């Protein structure tokens, strides 16, 4: 049983009060987050009130739900009613959404208690959390290193023991990569499995919400709570899917596991060695292990860095100073909009807005956006061939372990390459889970990634649990 599930069991059984659990975590945040900077906002009063409500339910003989009393950290691009939601951007400073994201409502209904909003790369654009307008987050395992990104605050919150569960969002690897760099389990569900309503969009056709946890069982339980059809999101899968937590103890006997060359060969030798070790362990557990190639993965980086900015350039247009958030006045409305956006967005966000504007502009659409979208289909076609041979694929999550601050900040392509291993399944819309699997030469954690086709989430979890069990 996972750490979070254990807490929930204690609360549900009345062995421990939710207030006690929540207070303990709030104390730890108060003590250590000054250095880590995982949180942008800690919602102490609201969390304690929610804890008391859980305790009252238990006292009344009711079951508060599977996440009873468990503290949850929320990435600050998920809307929370009345609580500042910034996307780590000046442009949303002070904005208090009048509604809750669907995932937030669902975790609360399950008894979970959100304790605060975590730091991210501005609008989730980055792989180190260095792009936050409110300062970087440090990796709790080595504060000289980045926690990864863009869900770096959520990853750091779990790794530092501030909350056993966190929600992140993954557009090109933004859950899995920080999970790998902080020694956690990170889940990118199949696109559409989890509602995006209330997730402030970066790239609509790629964004997915998912859990970051210490172990696979917690991640599965959490995903089962937040997944499912939502009539406020037209892209959410319209029929309920089987629970992912039902498959965890099934093992890998007879399953076919392919080590995906394109996402493994790009990794450093120590990371590659851990992938090899995981593959061997799965073989020892009864899986049939082989190697496989999905050649279009090589162009995934290009496709992603055209598609995601294109969608972002449109999604981020609404931040114009008219209706909410920052306004920097001007002589007329057009000037006010320019002033607001120029002051409100950070340099990386501006770069991607302009890149996306260019990719969609007249005369360039076909060469850039059009071809990038077609590459996604080619990638899906090639994955389909690979999945005829193998039930799941295995590979690295990040080409390297956690890097030091500033190391890649000046070279956009070096930073973008942090996502090489996670991009293919993002572009294809497929399921993927990163599981911590030992350490690299620098003593920092290494993650291995289990990939599966669309809606194979239960199978991916089954294999992820088996990988975890062989550690």
């Amino acid at each position, binding site marked *: 049983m996972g750490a979070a599930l254990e807490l929930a069991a204690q609360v549900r059984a009345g062995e421990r009060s939710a207030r006690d659990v929540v207070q303990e975590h709030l104390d730890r945040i108060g003590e250590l987050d000054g250095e880590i900077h995982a949180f942008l906002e800690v919602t102490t009063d609201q969390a304690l009130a929610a804890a008391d409500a859980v305790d009252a339910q238990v006292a009344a003989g009711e079951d508060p739900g599977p996440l009873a009393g468990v503290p949850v950290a929320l990435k600050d691009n998920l809307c929370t009613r009345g609580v500042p939601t910034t996307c780590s951007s000046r442009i949303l400073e002070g904005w208090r959404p009048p509604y809750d994201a669907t995932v937030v409502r669902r975790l609360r209904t399950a008894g979970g208690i959100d304790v605060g909003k975590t730091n991210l790369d501005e609008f989730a654009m980055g792989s180190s959390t260095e792009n936050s307008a409110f300062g970087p987050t440090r990796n709790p395992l080595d504060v000289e290193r980045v926690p990864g990104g863009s869900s770096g605050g959520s990853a750091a919150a779990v790794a530092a023991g501030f909350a056993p569960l966190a929600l992140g969002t993954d557009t090109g690897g933004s859950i899995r990569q920080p999970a790998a760099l902080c020694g956690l389990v990170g889940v990118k569900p199949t696109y559409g499995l989890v509602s995006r309503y209330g997730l402030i969009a970066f790239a609509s056709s790629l964004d997915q919400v998912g859990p970051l946890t210490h172990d696979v069982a917690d991640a599965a339980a959490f995903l089962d709570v937040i997944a499912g059809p939502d009539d406020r999101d037209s892209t959410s899968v319209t029929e309920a899917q089987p629970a992912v937590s039902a498959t965890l103890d099934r093992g890998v006997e007879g399953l076919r596991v392919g080590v995906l060359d394109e996402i493994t060969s790009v990794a450093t030798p120590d990371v590659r060695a851990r992938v090899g070790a995981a593959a061997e362990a799965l073989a020892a557990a009864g899986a049939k292990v082989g190697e496989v190639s999905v050649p279009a993965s090589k162009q995934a980086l290009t*496709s992603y860095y055209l598609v995601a900015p294109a969608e972002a350039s449109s999604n981020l247009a609404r931040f114009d100073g008219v209706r909410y958030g920052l306004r920097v006045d001007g002589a007329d409305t057009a000037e006010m909009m320019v002033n607001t956006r120029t002051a409100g967005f950070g340099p990386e966000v501006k770069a991607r807005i302009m890149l996306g504007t260019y990719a969609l502009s007249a005369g360039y659409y076909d060469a850039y956006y059009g071809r990038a979208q077609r590459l996604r289909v080619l990638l899906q076609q090639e994955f389909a061939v690979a999945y005829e041979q193998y039930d799941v694929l295995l590979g690295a999550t990040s080409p390297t372990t956690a890097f030091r601050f500033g190391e890649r900040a000046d070279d956009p392509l070096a930073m973008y390459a942090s996502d090489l291993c996670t991009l293919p399944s993002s572009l294809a819309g497929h399921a993927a889970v990163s599981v911590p699997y030992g350490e690299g030469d620098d003593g920092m954690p290494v993650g291995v990634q289990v990939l599966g086709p669309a809606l194979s989430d239960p199978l991916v979890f089954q294999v992820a649990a088996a990988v975890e069990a062989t550690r």
Partner: protein
Amino acid sequence: MSERISTEDVARIAELARLRLTDEQLSHYVEHLGAVLDHAEDLDEVDLDGVPATWQAIPLSNVLRDDVVAPDVEPDEVLAQAPAAEDHQFRVPPILGEAP
């Protein structure tokens, strides 16, 4: 220096995106965007003829809702977030041009 994007291009898209750049920022972004677009030449290595351009992981269509009035947030709560409001409306500096 990339041949894929010029200073004029970046100035034009910055204007389209309602961003103002200093000369220094302009040359920085020409370099930044140029590097990404140079890298994008690897797309030319792939044969994409006949490959359609769709992207859905799970093909959905006709996702519709019933025509029911059920707003779930008080309009006042939305208006309360306005940087400036007057007479229950969002107030902005004068609007000089028509919509394009």
